[in-house]
Structure formats: structure tokens, C-alpha cells
């Protein structure tokens, strides 16, 4: 006996599908629109433009992928930018001191260790000292701002640098391929841990209802620490990818990353309150949309003073579509 699908059910399932996924569709539609504009206005330098977008977005994508763990818990980290700045300076100092490939490896490992430590600090100290999570984040923001300043003062120069040939392949094509490989690898790793492991399950649970999650027997403190450490690892890797591009750092390196990450995740449809609707794709979709939008507005020749206004309007339109909550009390 075969089961026939009711045509009425079939007709209603597509609108229902649309209704369930309107936010995802809107986020992807935003990306598609910016991509189309990119292709139209790319002109004769489309290939160059594409690789510029890849290089600009790569560090942000990697850090945003790590931020998914933290944001899915309903938390945020305002010290990201300052961390990136200090890590970049430290990496360059170590590479210049040790030299060669060994310097690069040691530099990265040192920064990775520091990033993991900061992640653990963010996750654990707030709980132990019964502080709001924003307080430890603020502490790290102030601390790293000061550290960045003092480190640059100690160098006696405005900017320190290292030859990019030490950090990446000399061939431009190989460099771009490496970036793609890194992004794909990180995205796959984050997706695996977020969708198929306890880490993602518990971080989303903490974001949805921390009390219920704790009462289900989950050691929420431990998983918060792991989540922040995962984010820290992505920050360290993102810093390295950023350095691959510029080879230099100064007292303002990394400024604004915290807010950029937030905007990218919002554009990608990530709920800032975290919970079960958190998704990894928001990091990729949101970052690419944001970077492409900036690129499009410049190549279209939009006046400098108007670019920010246009971006703001587009952001508002997108959030009104992707983040709107119908029914019930006003969302917090």
C-alpha cells in the first residue's frame, strides 16, 4: 500500500517552509544582492576585486566563526579588537627576535596560549567572582588597550613589521588558495563542534535557558570556559591571517573588530540572545555581506559622506526582516 501525499498538504508545506526560514532566506538574499552588485560593478578588475574581498573578509570570518560559540550563549566579548592588536604586536616581536620559520611557529604558539588563557579568564572568572560577563570583558578591553600602547611605546616606532614572505606563500594564487583552505577548515571544524558535539549543544542550551541547562546536570561553567577558549583560538588564528595580509601592527591595530563582529553576526541572522536559533552560517553570510557591501559602495562611486548612511539604511532594512519577532512580548 502506498502513501499518497495530500496535495493540500503539499501546497501548504512550501509557504510553511518559507515562514519557518524567512530569516535565513532574508540573510542569504542580502548576500546574493551584494554579490550581484559586486559582479556588475567589478568592472575590468573583477578578479582582483574578488581576491581583495577574500583577503579583507578572511580574518573577520575566522574570528566571527569562533564568536558563534560565545554569542550562542547570549554573551559578547568587547575586548576582541584589543586582543587582536596585542597578539599581532607580540607575534611580530617574537618573529623578529627569533627569526625565520621557527619564529613564526613560536610566535603563533605564544599568542595561541595567551588567547586560550584569556578565553579561560573570560569564561571562568566571571562565574567564580559572580560578575556580569561584560565586566571581565571590559577588564580585558582596558587591559589590552593599555598593553598595546605600552608595547608600541617600547618599540619607539609608530608601526612594527615583518616580511610577509615569512608568513605566507609569495605567489598570490597560492596565498588566496591558502586563505580559502583555512576558512573552509575552520568553518567545517566549527560546524562540527557546534552542530554535532556537546560543546554546541550545551552552549545553545546555556543561551536558551542557563538555569534549566545547569539543572539538567550540565557543568555550565566548564562549557563556558571551553566556548571562550574556542573563541580565543579563532582570535589567535584570525590575527595570524590578518598579519599575513599586512605584515605590520601598531597601537591601533584591531580597533573596531568587536563591533564589526557583532554587526556581521547580526547581518547573518544570529540572535544576540543566543539559544537554539544560533547558527554557524551567520558568521559566513554576515561577514561576506558586510565586506561586499563596503566594496560595492566604493566601486559604485558613492560619495564618502553617503556611504555610512547607505550602510546604516541597509542594515536597518535587513534587521527588520531577519530579526523581527512576531507575537508575545517585545524581544529583549
Amino acid at each position, binding site marked *: 500500500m502506498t502513501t499518497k501525499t495530500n496535495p493540500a498538504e503539499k501546497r501548504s508545506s512550501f509557504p510553511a517552509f518559507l515562514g519557518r526560514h524567512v530569516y535565513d532566506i532574508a540573510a542569504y538574499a542580502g548576500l546574493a544582492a551584494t554579490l550581484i552588485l559586486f559582479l556588475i560593478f567589478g568592472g575590468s578588475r573583477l578578479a582582483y576585486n574578488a581576491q581583495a574581498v577574500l583577503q579583507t573578509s578572511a580574518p573577520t570570518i575566522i574570528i566571527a566563526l569562533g564568536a558563534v560559540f560565545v554569542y550562542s550563549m547570549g554573551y559578547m566579548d568587547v575586548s576582541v579588537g584589543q586582543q587582536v592588536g596585542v597578539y599581532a604586536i607580540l607575534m611580530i616581536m617574537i618573529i623578529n627576535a627569533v627569526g625565520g620559520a621557527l619564529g613564526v611557529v613560536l610566535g603563533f604558539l605564544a599568542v595561541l596560549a595567551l588567547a586560550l588563557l584569556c578565553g579561560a579568564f573570560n569564561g571562568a572568572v566571571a562565574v567564580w567572582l559572580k560578575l*556580569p560577563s561584560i565586566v571581565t570583558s571590559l*577588564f580585558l578591553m582596558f587591559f589590552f*588597550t593599555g598593553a598595546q600602547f605600552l608595547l608600541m611605546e617600547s618599540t619607539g616606532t609608530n608601526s612594527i613589521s615583518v616580511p610577509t614572505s615569512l608568513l605566507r606563500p609569495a605567489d598570490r594564487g597560492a596565498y588566496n588558495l591558502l586563505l580559502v583552505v583555512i576558512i573552509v577548515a575552520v568553518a567545517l571544524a566549527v560546524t562540527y563542534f557546534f552542530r554535532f558535539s556537546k560543546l554546541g549543544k550545551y552552549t545553545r542550551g546555556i543561551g536558551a535557558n542557563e538555569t534549566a541547562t545547569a539543572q539538567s546536570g550540565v557543568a555550565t561553567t566548564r562549557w563556558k570556559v571551553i566556548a571562550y577558549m574556542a573563541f580565543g583560538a579563532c582570535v589567535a588564528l584570525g590575527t595570524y591571517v590578518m598579519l599575513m595580509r599586512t605584515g605590520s601592527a601598531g597601537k591601533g591595530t584591531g580597533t573596531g573588530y568587536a563591533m564589526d563582529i557583532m554587526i556581521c553576526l547580526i547581518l547573518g541572522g544570529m540572535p544576540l*540572545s543566543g539559544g537554539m536559533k544560533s547558527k554557524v552560517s551567520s558568521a559566513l553570510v554576515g561577514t561576506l555581506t558586510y565586506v561586499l557591501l563596503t566594496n560595492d559602495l566604493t566601486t559604485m562611486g558613492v560619495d564618502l559622506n553617503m556611504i555610512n548612511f547607505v*550602510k546604516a539604511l541597509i542594515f*536597518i532594512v535587513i*534587521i527588520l526582516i531577519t530579526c523581527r*519577532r512576531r507575537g508575545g512580548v517585545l524581544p529583549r
Partner: protein
Amino acid sequence: MKIIKKTLLTLLFPALMFAVMLAITASSDKCYVDGQLIFLQADMVRQVLVNACMTVCVALAIWLQLKNGRFDFSAGANMILSAIIAGNVGLQTGSPVLALLTAVAVSVALSCFTAAMYIFGRVPIIISTIGATLLFESLTYLVFGGAGVRAFYSTPGLSVFGRLPGIFLPTCIAVAAFVIFVYFTTQGRKGKILSNNQTAGVNIGINEKRNIGASYIFTGIILGMAAVIYVSQNTVTPQAGLSTSGIMFSYIVPVFMGMFIGLASCDVVGIIIAAIGMEILNYGLNCLNLGAGGTQQIIMGVFVLGFYAFSGQLGNIQALLARMKNRRARA
């Protein structure tokens, strides 16, 4: 007796801060000029009062929304845009009063826009205020040719609200607006219920939209006062890229501290006291030539963490003291 105890507890923080900074600066040669300790000069009182007034206004605006359960990113951008418009109006008309009224009007209008976007857009508050911030920042490039406002603070007749004693007027208005809304309006009193349990508050009949509307109007008044003080003290240039959120993060410290200090009295007193205490700290660091640069940031970070760690553990400390007292009594 209780009142005296509460007063002493309230004044403890700035008094402690003053004593500590006095001890540190008195022991440093850098802080003496012609044998006189600069920390004890009239300039200290003037700077602490002037800077604390600005801090109080912004902190009250942030706290008013936090108290109602809303984290508003747009306070800084609102203030900057209002300052630019008010400053230019003041320059063109030559009237500081018109500048003040313009600041209030613009700020209230911008706040109402933020509220409307939240209410009708039904977008989570952080996200909608980020959108409002981006929009307000972009407008700073479009109003008055993107030139900001430059000569307002240096014109003595116009910048009265940024100097003593004129600065007390906008500050008092800001404090009055806060007190009126929180303690003398229905919406303000019900705000705490919404903050603690939004669903329960709505279910028992609290009109959340009215609460939001009213709170943002009063926030606009307070931010208007902050804007007129800000433009009376600084060149104001257009901002972009959520850089104004830095204003919010730098003024949020007295907010959190004020909540704790205000346990002995009330939150508005706590914020005023916290602002004064922080400015005493800043002035002391400036005397030690640590007022800018890396060291000051690290000191500020350690201080914030230490303060919160202490306040977070206060319950445990009190319990420990009680246990020790009991043990001694039993012994």
C-alpha cells in the same frame, strides 16, 4: 542614626578614593610645584566637578534604560548628533539657551525614533539600538556639510553650560528628569517589574510600549543635557563605525559602580557619588602623569575588576564576618 549611617556609607567611596590618591600623590615628587601639592589645589575641585557633571548625565541616560531592562547602544551617537546640531544652531543664533533647547529637542526626537524602531520593528533592543547608532553616526556626516562643530566651546558667551557654574543647570535638569521619571511617574515605577520579569509584567497589565515611549523621552532629555555640556567643552566631529559605542563603554563603569554604592541610598545618588569618585581617581592619575597612555588604561581595568570582584563578594564577606563573630561569641 540610620540616616547618618547611610550618608557615611554613601560618602565612603569618594572619601576613600580621595584619601588614597592624596597619600599616593603626596609621596611623589612629580606632584609638587614650588613646594605645593597640586592635588590639593583649587583646580582639582573645579576639574572633578566639571568632569563629574558630564559623567553623571551620560551615566543616568544609560542607567535609565538598563533599569528598565534595555541595553541601549545609541546613547553616544544620539549625544554626538544632538551636540553637532545644537552647537551649529548656537553659533548661528549666538544663544546658548537656544542651543540647549535644540539639543533637548533633537535628542528627544532621536530617542523617540529609537523607541519607535524597537516597538514597531519588534527587533531585539541591542540590535535595534545598533541600527539606530549606525544611522545617527551616518547623519553626523550629512548635517552641516559633515563639518561637525568647532568654535562653540571656545566662545565664552556660548559655552556657559560647559563651565562652572553654568554646568550645574543641565546637570540638575538631567538629575531631575531621572528622578521624576523613576520615582514620580507610573511608567517609571513599573519599569522595575518589566526589568525583572517582562512576561509577568505584561501579563499583569503593564503597557510595555508606553513604558518604552516614556523612558525614551526622558532619556532624550537627559542626553540633550549631556550633549550641550559636551559641545560646550569639545570640538565635535562626525563619527562612524560604531565608534560612539566607546562613549557608552567608558561611562558604563560609573553606572555599575553607582548601582552598588546606591544600595546605601538610592541609585541616582550612587551614580553621582561614583562619578565624583572616578574623577578624583582620574585627577590623581593625571597628577602622577599617568592620566593618559597605556598605564592609565591598565589601572582603570584593574580598578573596575577589583571593584566588581569586591562588590560581588560582599555577601560572602559579610557571611564570613558573621561566622567569625559567632565563633568568638561561642568561645
